[in-house]
């Protein structure tokens, strides 16, 4: 996958904001992820070239963080919080409900390419449990009815 000139320019600009350019690796990974929705070796090479750092420095940073999937996901990446505050409010049933509704297993994408369901650790929305993050947005205080409504809206927006 090729990073656009615009993304490369933004990565280069990010490098100017830090006393040491290696600090711009994480911002660069976010920029590449925003463009393609996942990361791979080809992107690491391009980031390394723009920043003037080593490929391995980019690759090892990318491998450490959970926010950068290494393969494409569905248009709606549904991340259900599985940690204690959400679990106490039924998040495990929320996950099962979504998987059953979509007919997929955890981490799989629906055949129409719309939905991928994964479980994640605490997302800092503990007082509004149960919750899920869909792409960038938080959906909180979830009930079965709310989930049904959201899925219908996303399908209609297809």
């Amino acid at each position, binding site marked *: 996958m090729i990073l656009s000139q615009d993304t490369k320019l933004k990565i280069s600009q990010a490098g100017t*904001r*830090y*006393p*040491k350019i*290696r*600090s*711009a*690796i*994480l*911002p660069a*990974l*976010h920029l590449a992820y925003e463009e393609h929705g996942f990361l791979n070796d080809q992107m690491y090479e391009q980031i390394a070239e723009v920043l003037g*750092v080593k490929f391995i*420095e980019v690759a*090892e*940073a990318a*491998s*450490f*963080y*959970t*926010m*950068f999937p290494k393969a494409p996901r569905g248009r709606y990446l549904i991340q259900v919080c*599985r*940690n*204690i*505050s959400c*679990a*106490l*409010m*039924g*998040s*495990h*049933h*929320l996950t099962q*409900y979504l998987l059953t509704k979509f007919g997929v297993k955890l981490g799989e994408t629906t055949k129409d390419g719309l939905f991928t369901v994964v479980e994640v*650790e*605490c*997302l*800092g*929305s*503990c*007082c*509004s*449990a*149960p919750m899920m*993050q869909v792409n*960038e*947005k*938080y959906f*909180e*205080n*979830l*009930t*079965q*009815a709310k*989930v049904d409504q959201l899925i219908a809206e996303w399908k209609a927006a297809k």
Partner: protein
Amino acid sequence: MEAAIGAQKRVLFEHIDDPNLHNIDRAIELGAYKAWAKVLKEIKREDLVQLVKDSGLRGRGGAGFPTGLKWSFVPQNSPKPKYLCCNADESEPGTCKDRVLMENDPHNVIEGVLIAARAIDCHIAFFYIRGEYDLSMRRIEKAISDAYARGFLGKNILGSGYDLELVLHRGGGAYICGEETALLSSLEGEKGLSRIKPPFPAVSGLYACPTVVNNVETLANLPRIVMRGAQWYAAMGTPKSTGTRIFSVSGHVKKPGNYELELGTPLRTLIYDFAGGILDDKKLKAVIPGGSSVPVLLPDQLDTPLDFESVQAAGSMLGSGAVIVMHEETCMVWVAELLAHFYMHESCGKCTPCRQGTGWLYEIVHRIEHGQGKPEDLATLEDLAHNIEGNTICALGDASAVPVLTTLRHFKDEYVHHIEHKTCKVKSNFRLRS
């Protein structure tokens, strides 16, 4: 976020209900950046450090270390640049207080960053924000941009001759990066691995330069302390735990939410008067008073005052101020399994006891929870947890041992029942509400 706010001691939450507070014009109308101007024009750097020392302000990230004292460890005669990092990587399960401040009152947080930067004579500060916090990030990004536009950041700020740049840095989704040395590794573009202390960041931190890492809530207190004085702040709370605290109450309560109360307020008052009592009027079973990495308190400890010393005396810690409430239908082996999974997932892998031990802890608790436990497992769990504790660079190893040890200490009968009967005597089954 729906933050339930009743009759509280509103200091940080003074204007939190104002829907336009995140806009700089509205924030300025309500007093934002007055303290910053006062610091630049009227207060010497040394006096600012003393002011915060006198206020008694202690860090709100978890450890509770005195803020002014932490600043004073930064060597002022060092030829190296000094750095300030705002720790906005809130990730401790149960904790969601910093997010409220960043989303609703970002200028107050930014103003706190500026004041702390001045206190240590720093000219480049970093705002390390949790990667998943999209709205917080957008609000902080806009607030920083607007602060530059109004001359509160940049060169020769408000004609004072003081220069300060503030860089927003987005994390990548790793709990460990909330630990200060791991945060610095991450900010340097490396994997977020924690570092051995000493040297402490105040002497050798970011890029091996003197660095202070302060939590969002800690910094948010600074503008008020500057404007109203150390004595005003110290008069709230208890003599050793001054001021207010934002408590995030989650789990089995009727009104979960973030509540700002004076330190020293009894746990019972927080749970029953503010959070509405136990969900479905069931019996209280256990409370985690300071985020997932601290020991549970039991119903007979409900009168414990929520301050650093009292909670410690009760056998736990105030930590991040996240209060997680569990009612009688909660299986404590299941709770231990949930949290063991978390620490296994989030271990950075640098220290062998943590890298290997967290996975082992999870494996055993998972086996017990699912009816495949063996009688000797309990002794192995204790031995294992004690061999992780104190044998790792950072506190994540200690934290991973806590849920297992605390549930074993107080609810051993549940573990034994799981092992002997291959099933659960309590059976947590918290369904998604329709």
